């Protein structure tokens, strides 16, 4: 049961949140100009790393805000949370090596 840090409400149990998958996937500005394979990439493909993952969560039973956090998919270490539009320190290649 993860302890997630909502940027507005503070640390809460995972059960208050719903998960939104990989973060920083921008919707194409002009979808009609995208090839089928590029559009498919946007709709279906996700990185699924064994390591640090920037992902989206929504505080469903709290303030109902969407935010991002960086979590290690194996250890569940959470590096930090940040609001949509904010940047978060990049992970060094060494940190993101597979275990």
């Amino acid at each position, binding site marked *: 049961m993860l302890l997630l840090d909502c940027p*507005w*409400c503070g640390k*809460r*149990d995972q*059960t*208050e949140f719903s998960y939104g998958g990989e973060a920083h996937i921008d919707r194409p500005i002009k979808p009609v100009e995208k090839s089928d394979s590029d559009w498919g990439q946007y709709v279906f493909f996700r990185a699924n790393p064994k390591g640090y993952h920037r992902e989206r969560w929504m505080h*469903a*039973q*709290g*303030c*109902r*805000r969407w935010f991002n956090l960086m979590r290690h998919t194996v250890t569940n270490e959470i590096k930090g949370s940040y609001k949509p539009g904010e940047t978060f320190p990049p992970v060094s290649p060494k940190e993101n090596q597979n275990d």
Partner: protein
Amino acid sequence: MDDLATITSTDGFNPTVGSPLFGKKAVEHPVSLRQAEFEGKVILRGDLSDEAFVESCQTLLSVSLPDRVGDVVEGALCSVICLGPDEWLTVETAGASKLLSAAGDHPNPKQIVVSDYYCGLDLSGDLATHVLQKVVAIDFDEANVPVGTCVQTALHNVPVIIWRQADAGSYRIYVRWSLAEYVWDLLADLVLSEG
């Protein structure tokens, strides 16, 4: 067959006002559980960086909007609870919502009446915090939830707003109409198991 006379509003109109907790007997021992009186409530939406919005709210409410989620500002007309970075809940102290009518010529911020949306329950007593801890995974230490502030959280998987009153062992719990009876019955059951 006679047509039934048209029923229109008249002064002194007083229809039967319903409540999801109609008929629920208040619990007194060892913790008090009571229905709150009906209160007018309005949700305000807007951005604190928008000067026009901030001003119109100030005019409307006579107090500044709190800027931290969970903070409450008490005004003469109403209390103002910050629910999110762009969302506030005003709770009036008596009767139906007068806020909208009070708006008058002032430029209105986005307002949504939610007087019936939330139903209020009052839980208080020495063991009130103890009872809440059974079904709410929040640390109610006063350093974490100071008196006069709110937390939006899950109570046994039901989303609620818990407002800690000036007396640290007293809580106003706002729950949606449809779930009020379930939450009441659950709290009453937990309170009575203490006794």
